[in-house]
């Protein structure tokens, strides 16, 4: 109780304090508040992961009643990974926000929201009362909206923010439907009521209930086709917010799905198949669109969708494992999914922070305009490279470990599976491999075009590396990325605790040992890979120490006056891929024709657009608008009419019982006749 109370007090005081102090101090207040809240919530999370349950319930007035605060190892895991990214986010955000120091009120609002969203997320992970849960979720939705629209004077930012606000409330609506549904049968707001209710009904009904919750959380997490808010919100937000949003806030959706799976007692096999199908589509579609994006933050946003797909494949695999009673499969799936959640929060936040640094140095997010930054910003480039390698799932970095867990589960499932599940899992392997390959195409493009070669566009500003304090949080993340890649045993042992919530605790005694054993070999191989590279590089240094080394221009195949404009561009790098899958993509081309023998100057523009967004959002919205347009005459601008509508409405409400009676009476009369 003491911890919860102190978290609430710290949040309230610091949120108020942010408004009172000078501009330069606001970020420090936020930092201290996040640090204190982080330490306090870690104090809850760590014992839970060491198997000391935290179960508490307090009385919160007449409205809420008893609020159970139950923290299990699943919540503990998510609290820990959230705290890390939130902390690096504010460390980086402090510097990022230095550029906006003249906007005092705006900054207060921003940092206060940052403190409150941290609190709200701790709440989401802790409370197990649906009413309280909806409240903290709403708090999170509103504050993240405020964080996104920091640059509210830009029309695009505002639009993206409102888009996000609407979609997150659709998510809340579905959640409310789910909770009200359960409440109407059980009369309880406690999460355990969901479990009780679903054990009493048939599996198909509990699957429908699962679907309702799944849609709610899928909107948050960004599963296709509920992903459309992501690519707008991420580029619009300041970079540290995008990093936190992609790293932590969308993971609330993953947490929600995992929590729902724990609570809902249904047919795991069907659920697993369903989740896997959605996830494979999400992963492949996300990365496919990421490849054709040339705005770096938009590209990263689509990659978040892809990674949510990978996490989803893990969750689905785990469910299938539960359905088939295959404990190895279940463990590999859930542990892989949860570890990938951590991994993604690390490398994605690092990528966003680097993108932010690039943006502040060059004032552009367009990949095509950048180039050669590695010479001006070697640290940022190296950090971006580490994160890019990690996101492609390459050893010896962390992305490989979680993907390996999922792969090994898939292959084990294939090795001892039934016909239906085997065929299914092979398709999953296919999906995962293609996702990996496309991620590589995308990140060789992103890294190669942004940081390598020479400047593609003349930059007015002098581009410099950021300060040491700007690099510290990034190096912190990079160290974590390498640590997980090199000593995965430790992290998988930690994640085996929340994973055993799903698989049953008996498994933790002997089964993960096998995986830990495998992982220690991976650890050796990863270290071996690093050492081998170092040895070979060193050998080269020695062998060519006395050799004649010169610098010369790049070999232009005989052409001696190459310019920066002749370099390969991002668009041309992915052209052959784009042509290959053009049926699935949508490119809006804007081009005027060439006329005459000596043609005029021609301007050509291409904008990639989301085909799913067109089909699932734009077209239905257009029809809805058309239908609503019929009633436009009601909206005539005359106050008298509006008062009339009110009166008519009140009259109808009042006379409704009478009207019902009259109808019933007439009905009876007709029957008698």
């Amino acid at each position, binding site marked *: 109780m003491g911890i919860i109370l102190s978290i609430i007090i710290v949040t309230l005081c610091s949120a108020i304090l942010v408004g009172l102090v000078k501009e330069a101090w606001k970020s420090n207040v936020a930092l201290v508040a996040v640090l204190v809240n982080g330490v306090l919530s870690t104090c809850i999370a760590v014992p839970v992961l060491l198997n000391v349950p935290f179960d508490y319930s307090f009385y919160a007035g007449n409205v809420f009643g008893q609020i159970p605060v139950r923290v299990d190892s699943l919540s503990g895991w998510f609290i820990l990974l959230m705290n890390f990214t939130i902390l690096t986010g504010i460390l980086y955000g402090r510097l990022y926000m230095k550029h906006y120091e003249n906007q005092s009120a705006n900054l207060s609002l921003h940092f206060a929201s940052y403190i409150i969203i941290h609190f709200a997320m701790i709440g989401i992970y802790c409370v197990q009362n649906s009413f309280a849960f909806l409240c903290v979720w709403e708090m999170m939705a509103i504050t993240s909206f405020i964080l996104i629209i920091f640059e509210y004077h830009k029309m695009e930012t505002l639009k993206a923010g409102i888009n996000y606000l609407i979609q997150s409330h659709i998510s809340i609506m579905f959640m409310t439907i789910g909770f009200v549904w359960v409440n109407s049968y059980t009369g309880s707001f406690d999460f355990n009521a969901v479990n009780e209710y679903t054990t009493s009904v048939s599996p198909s009904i509990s699957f429908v209930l699962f679907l309702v919750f799944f849609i709610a959380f899928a909107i948050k997490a960004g599963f296709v086709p509920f992903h459309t808010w992501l690519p707008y919100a991420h580029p619009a937000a300041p970079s540290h917010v995008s990093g936190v949003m992609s790293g932590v806030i969308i993971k609330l959706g993953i947490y929600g799905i995992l929590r729902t799976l724990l609570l809902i007692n249904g047919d795991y096999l069907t659920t697993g198949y369903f989740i896997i199908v959605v996830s494979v589509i999400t992963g492949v579609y996300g990365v496919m669109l990421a490849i054709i994006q040339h705005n770096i933050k938009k590209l990263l946003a689509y990659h978040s969708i892809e990674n949510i797909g990978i996490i989803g494949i893990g969750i689905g695999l785990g469910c299938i494992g539960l359905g088939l009673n295959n404990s190895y499969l279940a463990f590999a799936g859930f542990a892989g999914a949860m570890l990938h959640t951590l991994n993604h929060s690390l490398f994605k936040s690092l990528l966003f922070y680097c993108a932010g640094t690039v943006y502040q140095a060059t004032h552009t997010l367009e990949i095509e305009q950048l180039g050669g930054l*590695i*010479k001006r910003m070697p640290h940022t480039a190296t950090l971006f*490279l580490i994160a890019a390698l990690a996101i*492609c*799932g*390459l*050893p010896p970095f962390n992305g*490989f470990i979680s993907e*390996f867990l999922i792969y*090994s589960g*898939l*292959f*084990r499932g*294939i*090795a001892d599976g*039934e*016909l239906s599940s*085997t065929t299914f*899992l*092979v398709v999953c*392997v296919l999906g995962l*491999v*293609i996702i*990996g*390959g496309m991620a*590589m195409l995308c990140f*060789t*493009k992103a890294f*190669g075009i942004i940081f*390598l*070669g*020479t400047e593609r566009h003349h930059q007015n500003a002098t581009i410099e590396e950021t300060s040491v304090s700007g690099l510290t949080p990034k190096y912190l993340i990079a160290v974590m990325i390498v640590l997980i890649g090199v000593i995965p045993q430790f992290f998988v042992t930690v994640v085996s605790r929340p994973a055993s919530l799903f698989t049953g605790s008996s498994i933790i005694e002997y089964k993960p040992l096998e995986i830990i*054993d*495998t992982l220690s070999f*991976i650890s*050796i*191989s990863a270290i*071996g*890979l690093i050492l081998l*590279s170092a*040895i*070979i590089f060193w050998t080269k240094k020695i*062998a*060519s120490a006395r*050799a004649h*080394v*010169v*610098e*010369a221009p*790049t*070999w232009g*195949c005989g052409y001696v006056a190459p310019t920066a404009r002749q*370099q*390969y561009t991002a668009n*041309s*790098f*992915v*052209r*052959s891929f784009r*042509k290959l899958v053009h049926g699935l993509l949508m490119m809006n081309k804007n081009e005027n024709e060439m006329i005459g023998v000596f043609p005029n100057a021609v301007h050509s523009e291409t904008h990639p657009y989301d085909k799913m967004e067109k089909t699932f959002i734009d077209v239905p919205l257009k029809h809805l608008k058309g239908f609503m347009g019929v009633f436009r005459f009601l909206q005539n601008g005359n106050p008298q009419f509006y008062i009339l509508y009110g009166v008519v409405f009140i009259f109808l409400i009042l006379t409704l019982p009478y009207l019902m009676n009259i109808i019933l009476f007439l009905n009876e009369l007709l029957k008698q006749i």
Partner: protein
Amino acid sequence: MNILSLILIIFASLFFTGIIIRTKSFFSGRKGPGIFQPLKDIWRLFRKGAVYSQTSSFIFQVAPSIYFASVLMAIFLIPFGNQPGIISFNGDFIFFAYALALGRFFIIISALDTGSSFEGMGASREALYSLLVEPAFFILMGSFALLTGNTSFYEIFSLLHFGSYTSYAVGALAALVLVIIALIENSRMPVDDPKTHLELTMVHEVMILDNSGFDLGLILYATNLKFAMYGTLIANFFLTPGNEWYYSIIIFAVTQTTFAVTVGAVESFMARFRMNHNPQYIFVITSISLLIFLGVLLLLGKII
């Protein structure tokens, strides 16, 4: 004895490209260079100085080393018949594929590092083709995981029993897939022509236009190693357990030589595909590996 496969692969890599070149010169009616000529070239490169592009950064300097290390790491995982590789664990073929991918990532970005439009073009193609090749390998390994019930190179190969006719068909198809994968990974005909003189039509060779000296030597020798590595994988299909190791080594030598001669013959009699036909061709091997998967299902009696 676990080091046996490493020794054999390195030994085979010494001859491999030499045999290819001799085969090609035989078919074109030339006398051709000696069998160790490619090695001599590499040795000379190792002792030479280097020219680095002014545009390039440290990426360009470290990439060849990492590429070579990744190939070596992949070789460490390859078993030899009933001898495991230096490192062997469940799911090691996943690490195998991803280690190779790491090397490829670095070669691609080192090509982009030079800022040359030709090298960018090669990088783009390499990234696309490797994306298309990878599913075939994974489905292939998935099929054998299903067939043997195991998920490591060593266990899969030591448990692979050839009994019925279908299993021979599966084995032959798998060897075919691996040959094609090796050809694509090493950028040989019919996907890429290493001996062409027009940079516009190259894939791998154009990416390493700017590499010179020790770096170029590393990259060229890595190609030899990769050939020998895939040759060993193919040989593993035929090294059935129970055979003594001296039989195995003969089978190994025969397989590697046949593989090298096949590559040489393919290069002598086939023309390179048009660039935009390559993706279709590469997709074909994915469908062959799906066929293998179906064959395995048949073998296990899961569908009938």
